């Protein structure tokens, strides 16, 4: 496999960006369409090729058997077909070396051969094959690190042992994101050619320029092996997000929304940077200390050894409780999580995402639903080995993540219930769903979170694009100006219907399995011995939020597609370039569930399909405490969770329909502008008054006061008047002195030269003896 395809993968959309940026305006829309759409498509094809390679390597025959059977097999094949290899295994947050036996035979022929030669009995084989996944993760001796491609383009810089490389890592986690970014990205690009079709050629080119740049930056984020390289992508997508939110910058409000997103993200990024700084400090200590060679970096591999080192040091009791290396890792993780809350719109930095809806709808679908906002979850999953045991003052960082996630999920879900703007409903829904993912990550269910990330990417992109189609038809974003569109926009309706039900977690659709997998993991977590009641509470919040999700999804469908049309004009179906992506995404929203059907749902013959995506990640992410639980107990919990999830989803979908169905919207108490419901709705419409609190009562005035104070006493008095002015004054005085010596007369220059030429040798000769004399004199004076 030629791993140089990895940087090419990034290069393709980047080339698209360059072409569109430099020639797009001049060569017209068809050129832009070609380049803009083909760039992510080509990247997708390359990603798919890499994926198939990865799978192929992963499915090489690896026999996982007891040691004595291994010896038998090895003797039988005597070194030609079978050999022992040392592999590095990254599991449970630790890297370890293990010896495995690799047999170069297709699995089936090996099994036949081994049975025929009596190397292994059928019973032993069954044992090996039916070993439970959770057990296998923990006890199987032959567990092998899954395939991963790394490619190092070269050294970026190295300063004092701090090495930063242009290194890329394509493993099971990143390929997932690559496929989502390029696959869903391609569909959204195609859709955009229709959505933005009526704009001028220059605007059109600008749009695709930004979109392609975004894809490239996002791929850098996802593929970067070094945290700093990841940060480059992180900032790159932030910039694209800013540019695209304020895409129609003629409207001041849009530009202001872009600025808001940018500023809020900077707060998060500060956390990210400080987190990296902590890791650098830690790495430097370790590199100068026990790790030896003095070379350190923010490379994922290095961080892994760092964690192992820190873990062992903590275990050896070299550092006090919560202090030293382990404590520093906790602080670093917390700071990185602050970065994640910024990028992934979690409390308290969630406020930018609803306003980011000022951007064109495909942007909302691509950046603010499917890809960029999931970067925080991706980052934590990528660094799961770092987060898994991280603690700050004895509080596990992942616990904080889970609490923040659940709170965000609940608050944003409630806020989505009261919105009128169709995109704001979806925006709050996105915040809420991201909260779910953080809840899952917090429960150390990284696989489940990534699964939800993928399914969410499908159905939320679908919903956004559908909303875009509706907006395109109605020229309004307000749901009170919509209604009855199911006949005039059949495809949009059908596809959005599927999307909404997937979002609501309706049984057998993708959102159902992924959301319930997260909730099941939280439930399981609350049953771990010694778990606090917090996990039970979080599970409760999750279920309650699922109910809210079902309600607002149904409300959206009801308000948009049923009843009678309340807007102006005659809306009609969008062109095929817009509906075809919708259909593909709808199909995806249904079929994505196949990536994670629970095992007990499937007949034994399809057992290998069970929990495909989450299980494929088991070996590359850290394992949480639930992995140690009794298997049967887990299954029972899973069934319970699924049943609860199904009942809630179906029940509240039905409730939603029943509640909202018969009456026109103005008749529904919730929508009516009277009564206590109105006040509650108003409260939720303003998203718990968070913006008001920040702007008027809380943070902003406090920050203003603080900044005024800082300005008055620190900046103005100390820095400006003291340090800067003082330094300036000293500098100007010095400058006058320097100029005074520059008389312009060659003789005075010569005099200066001669003086220096006499004084310097004299000093050189006399300094040592004089100094010796003085030292001796003082030493003598001291003794007498």
């Amino acid at each position, binding site marked *: 496999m030629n791993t140089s395809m990895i940087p090419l993968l990034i290069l393709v959309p980047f080339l698209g960006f360059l072409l569109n940026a430099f020639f797009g305006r001049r060569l017209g829309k068809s050129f832009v369409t070609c380049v803009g759409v083909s760039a992510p498509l080509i990247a997708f094809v390359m990603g798919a090729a890499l994926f198939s390679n990865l799978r192929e390597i992963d499915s090489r025959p690896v026999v996982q058997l007891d040691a004595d059977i291994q010896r038998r097999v090895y003797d039988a094949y005597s070194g030609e077909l079978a050999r022992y290899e040392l592999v590095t295994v990254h599991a449970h947050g630790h890297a370890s070396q293990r010896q495995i036996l690799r047999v170069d035979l297709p699995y089936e022929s090996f099994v036949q051969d081994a049975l025929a030669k009596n190397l292994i009995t059928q019973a032993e084989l069954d044992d090996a094959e039916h070993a439970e996944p959770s057990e296998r993760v923990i006890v199987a001796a032959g567990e092998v690190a899954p395939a991963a491609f790394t490619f190092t383009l070269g050294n970026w810089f190295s300063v004092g042992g701090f090495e930063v490389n242009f290194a890329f890592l394509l493993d099971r986690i990143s390929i997932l994101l690559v496929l989502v970014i390029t696959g869903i990205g391609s569909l959204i690009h195609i859709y955009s050619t229709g959505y933005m079709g009526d704009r001028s050629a220059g605007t059109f080119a600008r749009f695709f320029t930004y979109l392609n740049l975004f894809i490239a930056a996002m791929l850098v984020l996802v593929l970067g092996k070094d945290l700093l390289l990841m940060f480059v992508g992180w900032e790159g997508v932030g910039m694209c997000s800013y540019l695209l939110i304020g895409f129609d910058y003629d409207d001041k409000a849009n530009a202001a929304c872009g600025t808001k997103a940018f500023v809020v993200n900077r707060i998060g990024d500060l956390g990210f940077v400080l987190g990296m700084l902590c890791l650098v400090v830690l790495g430097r200590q370790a590199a100068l200390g026990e790790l030896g060679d003095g070379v350190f970096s923010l490379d994922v591999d290095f961080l892994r050894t760092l964690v192992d080192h820190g873990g062992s040091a903590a275990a050896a009791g070299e550092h006090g409780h919560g202090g030293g290396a382990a404590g520093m890792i906790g602080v670093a993780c917390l700071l990185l999580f602050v970065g994640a809350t910024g990028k992934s719109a979690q409390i308290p930095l969630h406020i930018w995402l609803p306003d980011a809806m000022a951007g064109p709808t495909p942007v909302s679908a691509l950046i603010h639903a499917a890809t960029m906002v999931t970067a925080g979850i991706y980052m934590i999953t990528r660094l799961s080995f770092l987060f898994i045991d991280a603690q700050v003052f004895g509080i596990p960082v992942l616990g904080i993540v889970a609490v923040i996630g659940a709170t965000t999920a609940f608050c944003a879900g409630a806020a989505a219930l009261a919105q009128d703007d169709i995109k704001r409903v979806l925006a709050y829904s996105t915040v809420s769903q991201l909260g779910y993912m953080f809840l899952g990550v917090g429960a150390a269910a990284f696989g489940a979170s990534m699964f939800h990330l993928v399914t969410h990417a499908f159905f939320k992109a679908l919903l956004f694009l559908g909303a875009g189609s509706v907006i395109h038809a109605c020229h309004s974003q307000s749901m009170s100006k919509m209604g009855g569109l199911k006949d005039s926009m059949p495809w949009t309706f059908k596809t959005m219907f599927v999307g909404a039900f997937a979002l609501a977690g309706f049984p057998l659709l993708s959102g159902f399995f992924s959301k319930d997998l997260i909730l099941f993991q939280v439930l399981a977590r609350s049953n771990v011995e010694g778990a606090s009641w917090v996990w039970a509470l979080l599970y409760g919040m999750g279920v309650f939020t699922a109910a809210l999700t079902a309600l607002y999804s149904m409300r959206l469908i009801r308000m948009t597609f049923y009843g009678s049309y309340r807007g102006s004009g005659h809306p009609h179906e969008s062109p095929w370039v817009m509906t075809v992506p919708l259909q593909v995404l709808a199909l995806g929203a249904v079929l994505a569930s196949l990536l994670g059907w629970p095992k007990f749902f499937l007949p034994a013959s399809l057992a290998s399909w069970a929990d495909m995506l989450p299980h494929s990640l088991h070996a590359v992410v850290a394992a949480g405490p639930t992995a140690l639980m009794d298997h049967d107990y887990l299954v029972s919990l899973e069934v319970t969770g699924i049943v609860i999830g199904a009942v809630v989803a179906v029940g509240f979908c039905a409730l939603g329909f029943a509640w909202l169905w018969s009456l026109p919207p103005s008749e529904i108490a919730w929508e009516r502008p009277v009564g206590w419901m109105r006040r509650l709705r108003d409260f939720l419409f303003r998203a718990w008054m968070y913006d008001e609190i920040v702007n008027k009562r809380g943070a902003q005035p406090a920050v203003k006061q603080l900044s005024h104070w800082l300005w008055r006493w620190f900046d103005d008095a100390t820095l400006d008047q003291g340090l800067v002015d003082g330094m300036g004054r000293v500098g*100007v005085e010095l400058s006058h002195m320097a100029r005074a010596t520059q008389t312009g007369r060659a003789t005075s220059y*010569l005099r200066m030269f001669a003086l220096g030429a006499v004084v310097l040798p004299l000093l050189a000769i006399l300094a040592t003896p004089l100094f010796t004399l003085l030292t001796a004199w003082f030493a003598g004076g001291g003794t007498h």
Partner: protein
Amino acid sequence: MEALDPIQIASKDFKYLLPVMLPALFGLVALVADLFSKSERSRLPLCMISLSGVCLAGFSAIAFWSGAEFSEHLAGTLSTSAFSTAAAMPVLLATFLISLAAAHHGMPTDPKATGWLPHSLSHGEFYGLLLFATSGMMGLIVANDLVTFFVALEVMSIAVYALTGLDRARSRAAEGAMKYFVLGAFSSGFLLYGMAMIYGAAHSVHFSEIAAANMSAGQSSLALVGAVLFLIGVLFKVGAVPFHAWAPDAYEGATTAVTGFMSVGVKVAAFAGGLRVLVALGAGGALNPAVGWLLWLVAALTVILGNAGALTQRNPRRLLAYSGIAHTGYLVIGLVAVSRVFDTSHSGYVTNVGASAQLVGVGVDAVGGVLFYLLGYAAANLGAIAVLCHLERDGEEVDDISQLAGLAKTQPKSAFAMTVAMVSLAGIPCTAGFIGKLWVFRAGVAAGDVTLVVIALLMSVLSLFYYLRIVVVMWMHEPGRGLDGEEQQVVALDHRRWASGLAVGIATALTLVFGMYPTSGILNLIKAGAGSVF
């Protein structure tokens, strides 16, 4: 008559001389070619001759010089290693970019005018002298004995004196050249006197034999005074306080392109040659701890005076002169660190027996820092100079930074290049200047001179003021409105000046590339070069 010792010279050794001789050869060609070119025609062929000479010298330097260890050639008169190549790069870069930047000097602004202005830099003399000086600089870099060192130094110096006064119609140029020449001759005297003393102490002029001589035993004061006098000569060339006085006047008097060449080429060559001699003297035991402290003093005075002097300058060339003095000061920190390697009282090691590995590591780091700093300084300073050359019209040069007001509106590319150059000179991250400063300062700290580095840091904060003032003037002032709100003529864009534009582009690109992605080739060369010095 007794036969002299036959000097063994292998004829294949002459290839090591190519990078030194090729510029001189092309200088002669340029000189003669100018006789045949009509004054009204374009001078670009001369520029091309110069460029090809530089490129060939560069290629041959890379091909023949880049060994990991110093090897001696031509009866020990030269010795070459990756250090020579690494030091030759900024020199050749200076010649290359200045050749380009000066190519359109004297081109009339009026496109209909025929013929070029008299006394423009595009004469054969300019390119000839430029290349002769380059030859001297290359010689200085590879000199392996005091005689070669002196000859190369004079070849360089005399050509540069002449270049300074080339625009002889301007009295300032003549004045600057005269001052430079008189003081230069004066300093050469000290240099020679120092050399004589070193020879007296070491009984040899060869660097390797000086390094092997045990001068600390008997001839310490002779060697010490010789070393200090020698260093005075070198410090004069790089413009260190108190031997800097010529620099502002000569820089201001000279034409901008010459200023750029002097400020980079002379400095690089003198630092490279000086470093080698310093190491040889140190290894031979000629230095005592006081020399380190003298250099310490010189470095501190130089950064303070350079930055302070630049603070209130409005003539960009004079500003760059003072800023060049300040940069010399930063670079002398590298020399301080190198001299600490031989500070026996620091480590308690007898010098000739061998300094501790750690101290040598500091020295290697310091030399690497100095080499990278020189490269970054060359790119940034030449970028600024090239912009000023680009803005020259009818022989009228930018003499006040007010003339740059609003450049961002009238010539955004030039303004951007100037900004990059200023940012790099100020040592702000993402530019070559930052990495260079970091490297040198780190070596200074490692050598134990924290106070000196703190002084340098404070002064580089001060330097932000005058560097960023130019940026502010370019980006925030209205075109045609100077610093005090006075009327200024707007420098119009001239599309025909592609050569100086190209120089601007190359310098800017290099500044950014070295700063953001210092390519491993360059870094390896510099590291190998630094490693070969000790």
